[in-house]
């Protein structure tokens, strides 16, 4: 088996956004996701929700070109009014076919 270069897109956002973000990324072609509940604070943010520093961390493994597409879509839709950050990192995976839309 050979290691393949992929991207890990990470989004840390207010919990209320997570379901919309998952829908958008899946519509664009992401095949899976991992969500964890985390705590944290950003710069000049508008906190929402009962517990102010509670955030969702969403991780998505995608092909490099799809990573940028997803990040751009999220930026366009949410950056102006919501608290979220998104970044991508290089990762190596096995079984690239697992991340392809069937």
């Amino acid at each position, binding site marked *: 088996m050979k290691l393949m270069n992929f991207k890990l897109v990470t989004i840390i956002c207010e919990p209320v956004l997570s379901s919309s973000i998952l829908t958008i990324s899946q519509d664009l072609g992401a095949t899976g996701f991992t969500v964890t509940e985390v705590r944290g604070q950003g710069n000049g943010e508008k906190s929402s929700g009962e*517990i*102010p520093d509670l955030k969702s961390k969403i991780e998505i493994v995608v092909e490099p070109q799809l990573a940028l597409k997803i990040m751009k879509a999220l930026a366009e839709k949410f950056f102006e*009014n919501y608290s979220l950050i998104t970044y991508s990192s290089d990762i190596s995976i096995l079984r690239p076919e697992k991340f392809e839309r069937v």
Partner: protein
Amino acid sequence: MTAFEILRTNLLSPIVLAFVLGVVTKLMKSELSLPKDLYSSLSIYLLLAIGLKGGVELSESTFQIIAWPAFATLVLGCVTPISAYIIMRKLGRFGQVDAAALAAHYGSVSAVTFIAANQFIEHMGKTAEGFMPALLTLLESPGIHIALAIGALKRAKNNSLVSSGDKKTKSAIFHEILTGRSMILLVGGLVIGLLMGANAYEPIKPFFETGFKGALVLFLLEMGIVAGARLSDLKKVGLPLIPLGILLPILHGALGVFLGHWSGLSVGGATVLGAMAASASYIAAPPAVRMTLPEANPTYYLTASLAVTFPFNLVVGIPLFFKFAEWLAG
């Protein structure tokens, strides 16, 4: 009892003291907070307990008794978001979107305030009608929808670029309000209680009633911590929120007590209805508002609802509405 004595009794009740402890805890910058899962579990327990009990009592009441109070509740659900919007615009000088966001919170209802009001009147030796939890579910959603509709309309007028996704969002919001935890637990509990009746409730009653007040104390401790965390935001968002966060519950509460009395509720029932109308939602409304009116500043509505209106109702509002209800009843 004089107004002063009532206030004093209320201040020294375990739930108010627990709330104060929570606020003090936060002000002292202690790291204490309830584990999030315990907080959720407690709210599930409390909401289901009032749903079940309400359902059982509903199975023993008739449509004629409920009809007028239910009508009064719906009137409140339609009037309070509009009056809140107008007051926030005119007196608070908030922008249209922020005013609509605030109105959604004041138009909806806080279940904890409802529970606190029930505890209070019980303490005063009165009881509220058993079907009050059914009214609670009636009051929860119309206010949010009306206020969000006002906000969406104003936004559409100001902004020709209404996104095509708006329709989708709207049905998503509707879905979210209807399937939110408080709706499911309250309505679900009511239906279960209604179907099973008093006999079947007997075996599960000890679990849902014996621990209820204790669980409420723990819950209020966490509410105090959450409200305390919002106190520092008060300085940031400006002080007009304080008088407005007190004026609105007084107005809405008085209207609620009045309509409750008019529709035939007892002193206890009218007090609880007043407290419901006076309360500002902090569970159902915030996510719905966040998704529909993203430009509205969440600090305004969360601070007003959690750091001003909730404590006001808990400490002063509920006894005030009780006095007014007593006075109306002669």
